[in-house]
Structure formats: structure tokens, C-alpha cells
């Protein structure tokens, strides 16, 4: 009986010891720099360097402006650019300029400039594939022109500019007009022998962004793009998604157009 009690108390002690340790990886929200979007460009004149642009939301600004009502959303995010030989190298260079540890677990958009995409995505994608922080649900998009432009745009409707693009794509995929091309899909399509990948193709303006269709790849190199109508046809054929409205000119002399809105698509 006494033996049992001794063991019980020893067990209790051991249990309490585990409570004391806490969590090794504890890192509070303010102790890390969450990157919400990454942009990758080529450095002009230097062929072997990548330019990495990041968008970092500033938590205090976001919380404060909603209370004050209409604070300048200019300051809600911080945008930084660094160069590096690889993406990992650039991230390391960025770390040297930041006070807190970079955290890529919340990264939702990866903007890739068309030049980089046309040169080949192998290097970039490989470094993201091996990083356990990177989510497979991240959206890689190909940007016509500079990728940094997409991160620097100020849509005004929303505090964090990249969330604007995210919502745009997300609502598009729900409506069936924009393909659901996440990082995971891209990786699957590159490793599948029977598929070639595609990515959403956007153009960034100063204060908004336009979805232009998809960029199509061959062996991880961008070879061209499809416009919106072509993309909808592809969506209807491949994924049985509804696609966008089809506008047909009226036959006869009167002119005018018919908007044809598909509700569902069935392929044989």
C-alpha cells in the first residue's frame, strides 16, 4: 500500500515536470515577421540574380485604423526588396535587414514576373517545395511586367493590397471563372507525366489588378498565355467548371448581343 502511494506521488511529480517545460517553439505573433506575399523578379542587367519583394502587414496599423476609421492604408503594409542568387539566399539577405524572424507560413500569394516564368521556374519552385512552412494552398500567379508592381499596388478598398488579389481569385474560383491553381496543383501538374502546369496570369496597375487568363507552361517554362475566353473553355472542358459568360452577336440586321450564362457544364 505504501509502495503504491510512493509510485503515485512519483508519477505526479513526473507529470508536473512536463507541465513546467512549456513549449520550445513558442514564438508570439509580435516576435515574428509574417510575410503575406512574395514577388520574384529578375534584376536588370544581372542575369544570375533574383529580386525578391515581400509584403509584410503591420498588425498595429491594421488594428488601429479600423478604430479610427479611414486611416491611411498606405502604412498598413511594409514592402521590402532584396536580391539574391536563389530565393533562399534572398530570404536570408532579407533576414539580415529585419529585427524578427521571418515566417513564411502565412504567405498566400507568390507573384512571379513573366520574365522569370519564361526563363524557367525550376529553381524557385524547388526551394518552395522543400520549405515545410510554405503552404500548398498558396497562390502562385504570373504577373505581366514586374512582380513588384503587384505588391506595390494600392487598391484602396482593403487594407492589405494582396488580400484584394486573394479575394479576387477566391471569388473567381467559387464562381467557376478563375482556375483554382494553388501551389499544390502546380506541383502535382509538374510531376504528373500527362499534365503540363498553368498559372493565373494577372496584370497589376497602380490601384488595382486585372485577371487576364492563364499562363501556360511546358517543362516549367512559360510558353504563352490564354486569354479569359480561352481559359473558360479550358475550365469547362477540364474541370467541368461553369466559366464566364459567352457573348454572341445577334444574327440579322438589328445588331445587338446575347449574353449566354452557363449554369453547369457536363462533359462526355
Amino acid at each position: 500500500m505504501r509502495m503504491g502511494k510512493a509510485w503515485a506521488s512519483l508519477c505526479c511529480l513526473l507529470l508536473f515536470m512536463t507541465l513546467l517545460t512549456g513549449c520550445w517553439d513558442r514564438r508570439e505573433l509580435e516576435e515574428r515577421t509574417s510575410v503575406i506575399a512574395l514577388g520574384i523578379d529578375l534584376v536588370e542587367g544581372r542575369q544570375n540574380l533574383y529580386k525578391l519583394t515581400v509584403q509584410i502587414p503591420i498588425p498595429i496599423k491594421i488594428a488601429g485604423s479600423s478604430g479610427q476609421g479611414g486611416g491611411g492604408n498606405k502604412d498598413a503594409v511594409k514592402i521590402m526588396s532584396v536580391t539574391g542568387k536563389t530565393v533562399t539566399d534572398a530570404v536570408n539577405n532579407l533576414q539580415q535587414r529585419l529585427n524578427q524572424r521571418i515566417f513564411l507560413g502565412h504567405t498566400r500569394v507568390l507573384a512571379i514576373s513573366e520574365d522569370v516564368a519564361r526563363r524557367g521556374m525550376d529553381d524557385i519552385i524547388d526551394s518552395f517545395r522543400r520549405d515545410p512552412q510554405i503552404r500548398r494552398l498558396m497562390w502562385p500567379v504570373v504577373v505581366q511586367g514586374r512582380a513588384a508592381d503587384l505588391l506595390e499596388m494600392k487598391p484602396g478598398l482593403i487594407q492589405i493590397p494582396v488580400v484584394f488579389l486573394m479575394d479576387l481569385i477566391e471569388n473567381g474560383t467559387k464562381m467557376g471563372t478563375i482556375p483554382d491553381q494553388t501551389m499544390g496543383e502546380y506541383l502535382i501538374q509538374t510531376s504528373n507525366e500527362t499534365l503540363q502546369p498553368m498559372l493565373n496570369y494577372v496584370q497589376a496597375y497602380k490601384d488595382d489588378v486585372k485577371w487576364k487568363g492563364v499562363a501556360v507552361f511546358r517543362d516549367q517554362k512559360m510558353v504563352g498565355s490564354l486569354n479569359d475566353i480561352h481559359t473558360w473553355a479550358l475550365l469547362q472542358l477540364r474541370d467541368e467548371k461553369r466559366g464566364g459568360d459567352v457573348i454572341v452577336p445577334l444574327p440579322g440586321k438589328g445588331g445587338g448581343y446575347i449574353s449566354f450564362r452557363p449554369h453547369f457544364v457536363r462533359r462526355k
Partner: protein
Amino acid sequence: MSQLGKDPQHNTFSLWQMTSLITSTLIGVGVLTLPRTTTEKMFEAGWMAPILGSVLTFFAIWLIAVLSRRFPGLTFIQYSRIVWGGHEQSRLGFWLSLPWIMMFLIALFVTTAITSRIFGEVVVTAVLMDTPLEVIIVSMFVLAVILCLHEIDTLARVNEILFPLILFPILFIALASFQKAEWNNILPLIRVPWETIITGAFETNFSFQGYEIMLIFFAFAHENTGKVKAGFYGIGISVFVYTLIVLAGIVVFGHEELQRVTWPTLELVKSTQVPGLILERLESAFLAVWVAAVFTTVANGYYAVIYGLRQLLKKGMLFQRIASIVLIFPLFFVAIGPQNIVELFKMTSLIEYTTVWISVVSPLIHWLIMLYRDRGRKREKGSDAHG
């Protein structure tokens, strides 16, 4: 040995407890790599591997149950010497049975260590990147030791209570990921030659390892419960879960992509979004629950080793408690032995081949000898009245 049968802790396991004991031991770290290992050779047909591979497992658990039914209330450690030496020559039986028992205990010991190492690797790579691997492994061992300090009926109840916690999240993940399914990925149904399918299925049998602990735990079954039934239920549930997970992996990723991810099931969780659920990063929740699955595998294995050792040396509860603490040290060093994950996977496949000996060949040999002896005794009884 006969007085053991009257011990109050014997004859307590219900059918449900035995089923959960088997299923929760089988479902462990293997779930995370199974979609990759099965599709490695069988490509699109990988989902058939658990079904085909289970045939051998069903046979083995049937053998183990039949052996246990022949010696009710006795564990493998106890009846092995009776099988080898009969009731008369117990010394001969002891020495003949010793290699089989030692093989069983050592293999189970190493498997337990490696399982906890794989668990540690997953946790370190996926969620807790700054936590030392050793800390994760040791904390798992400490939990196992705490369980070993208790009697055997505690083990059954712990398994019973953790069973739904292990089963439902895995089923949930598999079903939730089907919404992204591309069913073309499993076509063509059979592309590889039959020999490949058979070797692939045979290798999947390894992922069912762990049921050999029933060599010990079937002894504590309640008299009226069907051991064969419990075994078949336990393995049947595991086959179902495994098939579902592999199928989910193939239809979501395709077999080529599966070859490129180290922990396919974890990636499956990562890329699954559940509509209407607030949780966005499901993998943390999944891993938290998965800890329970690994714990039952590690703790059941370790308990079986300690209990086997206790019976082999005919010692009591105090020995079990001391041994469970002392044996943690060699266990830890086996666990941290492999230098990296490549070595770890190599070691796993090596162990898998030896476990076939423990879980299939050894019960088969014991069963055959038992049959031979029983027939001999019957003939003796027929010719000689007082024999």
C-alpha cells in the same frame, strides 16, 4: 503457471478492448508514409495494396488467436515452452523456445524505438522546428513508462478510450480530401504485372506490423469473447482506414507526386480545406491527435516487451516497474541511432523483414508443432487408457 489463470487481472479484456488494442497499435507512424510506399511499385493500383496485403495478416492473426485459444490464459512467453518441450520436459522447452521469445522481444523493442524516432522526425520537420528531437522522443518514452507502471487492464482501457480519437480524425481527413479528388488518377486500374502487385502487396503487409503484440495480450481475453473475431475486426478496421488514406492520396496527388513528398498524409492534411470550418491550418490539429495514435503504438509495444520480460523471468509487478524505467535508456539509444532520415527508412525496411518472422513464421511453426503434439497425444490416449 496454473495459478496465473486465477489472477483477478486475467480474463478481463472485452471484444471491443481487444479490437481497439489491435487497431490502435497498427495505426501509427505508417499512416503518414503509406500512400508513398504503396504507390512506389504499384503506381495507380497502390490502393489495392492494403487489401491484398492484409490476406497474410488475417492468416497470421488467425494463427495467433488459435494458438491462444489452445492455451487459454497463457501468453506466448508461457506457452512457447510447452509447445517445444511439452509438460514433461520443461527445461528443454525453455531452451528451445528462448530464441523465438528473444527474437520476439528484441524485434518489438527495436520497432518501438524506431517508431518513436519516426514520430520525432515528423514533429521536428513539420511543426516544432526548434525543439530538439531527443526531447520529443524522451517525452514519448516517459508517457510509455507511466503506462507501464500500471497493471495490464489499464492498458486495455487506455486503448479503448483513445481508439475513437485515433480513428475519426483520420477518417475525417480522408473523406474531407475527397472533395479535391481527381478520380482519373486511379486509372488505369491495373497497369503493372501481377508479380509486382503481389510483391507490393506483400510489402504492404509490413505496415500491418504491430499485431504480434497479441501473442501476449490475447491471453487476457475474457473467456466468452472470440479472439479470432477480435483479431479480424481489428485488422479489418485498419485495412479500411489504410485503403481510404492511400486512395485519398492517389486521387488528390497522383502517384508521381506522391513519390516526391516525404509525408504524403501530412501534405494531404495541409492541402485540405474544410468548408465552413474555422480551422485553417488543419495539420497542427491533426498532428496533435496523431500523437495519440503513435503513443498507443509505442506504449503497447513497450508494454508487451516489459511484460514479456517479466513473464520470462517469472517476476512480479515491482520488476515490471523497475524494468520499464531501466530499459528506457537502451530504447533511447536505439531510437537516436540512425543518423538521418534515409538511414532511418533503410532501418525500417530491414526491421520489417524480420517482423515477418515474428508475426507469421514463428506462430506458424508453433502451430504446426502443437498440431503434431496434439495428434500424438490423442493417439496415445486411444491406445493406452492411463496415458
